[in-house]
């Protein structure tokens, strides 16, 4: 059996909108990946501990509340602290243009805004997964 790509799709913070996250999760499933969906209202340490236990290759963060600069960066930093820098971190949701480059500099590999075709996300992950 070949190696399957495992992805954690997580909703950090307090916003309760997960339709987008579910659509992405479903698209990744249909692309043959194993998707662990965490549910709503996760803290950064819950997400990072889940990523460790599930040994995921990718963490996908979805956030629509505006707290991405804090929470996305918290997740990336905590993953780095746990020597998990080989995990690809991507984000999505309502992220202002000017924040995208800052997030990328902090270690979020890519940010997918509203209207991104799901196939683009699938292709990006397949091409950039690090292990």
């Amino acid at each position, binding site marked *: 059996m070949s190696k399957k790509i495992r992805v954690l799709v997580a909703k950090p913070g307090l916003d309760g909108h997960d339709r987008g996250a579910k659509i992405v999760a479903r698209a990744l*499933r249909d692309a043959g990946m*194993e*998707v662990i969906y965490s549910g709503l209202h996760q*803290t950064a340490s819950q997400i990072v501990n889940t990523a460790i236990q599930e*040994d995921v290759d990718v963490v996908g963060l979805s956030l629509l509340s505006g707290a991405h600069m804090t929470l996305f960066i918290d997740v990336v930093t905590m993953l780095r602290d746990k020597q998990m820098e080989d995990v690809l971190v991507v984000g999505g949701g309502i992220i202002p243009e000017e924040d995208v480059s800052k997030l990328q500099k902090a270690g979020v590999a890519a940010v997918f805004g509203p209207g991104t075709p799901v196939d683009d996300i699938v292709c990006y992950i397949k091409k950039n997964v690090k292990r």
Partner: protein
Amino acid sequence: MNDLASLVVSGNHRAIARLISMVEDDDVDAMDIMKKIHTNTGNAHIIGVTGVMGSGKSSLIFELALAYRAEGKKVGIIAIDPTSPFSGGALLGDRIRMMDLSTDSGVFIRSMGTRGAIGGLTSSVYDVVEILDAAGMDIILIETVGVGQDEVDIVKIADTTLVVLIPGLGDSVQTIKAGLMEIADIFVVNKSDKPGVEQAVAELESMLDLATHIERRTPIVTTSAKEKKGIPMLVRKITEHQEYSKKSKVFDVRRRQRYEAELIEIIRKRLMNFIFDENKLKGTVDCCIDQISKRELDPYSAADQILGKILK
């Protein structure tokens, strides 16, 4: 490699997670590590939780894990969801009900896809149980996929099997059908906050009345994971079952059955890999299939030919 084995035995979560991925992906290096850790196993109590989809297995496991944590026990959880037969992908959503456990260092949760297995489990589940056992878990809870009537492989691996039912699943004839209803060590009627619970219990009781020559009547526990009711009683019944099975040698018989199933699974996997390996028999297999489609060969003779090459 020695490193990973000793890290697993020391209970390191990253090492446990890595080794589980290796066995899931049939990594050749996993075998040596699995050989090493076997001596550290045999201490965990393995509890299977099965039942129809939506019966509340994940929520029940969350409550059970909390109860065992309160006793200071380390808990491993294996949560299995179906893999798509079409895409090979899976959506593993059992953790949603258990997220509050994810920051507790005494709990290790792993979500798994069935990856083509049909009995409600996944073929690497035996390995994962060994890994969690070697890593020092006192309790291992296995959540099967939401089952129908016939997916009962959990009995091959669990020391204690819980069959989770909910009110309103059907009339009393359903309770005397073969399969799922035969494997319970404990029946759990969950969602007892919903109407119909008394009838569900009465139908189970009348089914149990029909059973002849049994030395232990299967207990029925009503729970509501949502309202956190019935959990202490369920924990007590699990402990009683464990004591009973150890006293009556049921435990030893079951452990032996588990190792038998595990051994067969390992041999089956290796044989399949050998038969379908590009460099070994795949050419012969493909050639046989061509001949079968042209009616030059029948499937039984083809099987004789292929097996003949292995058994020579």
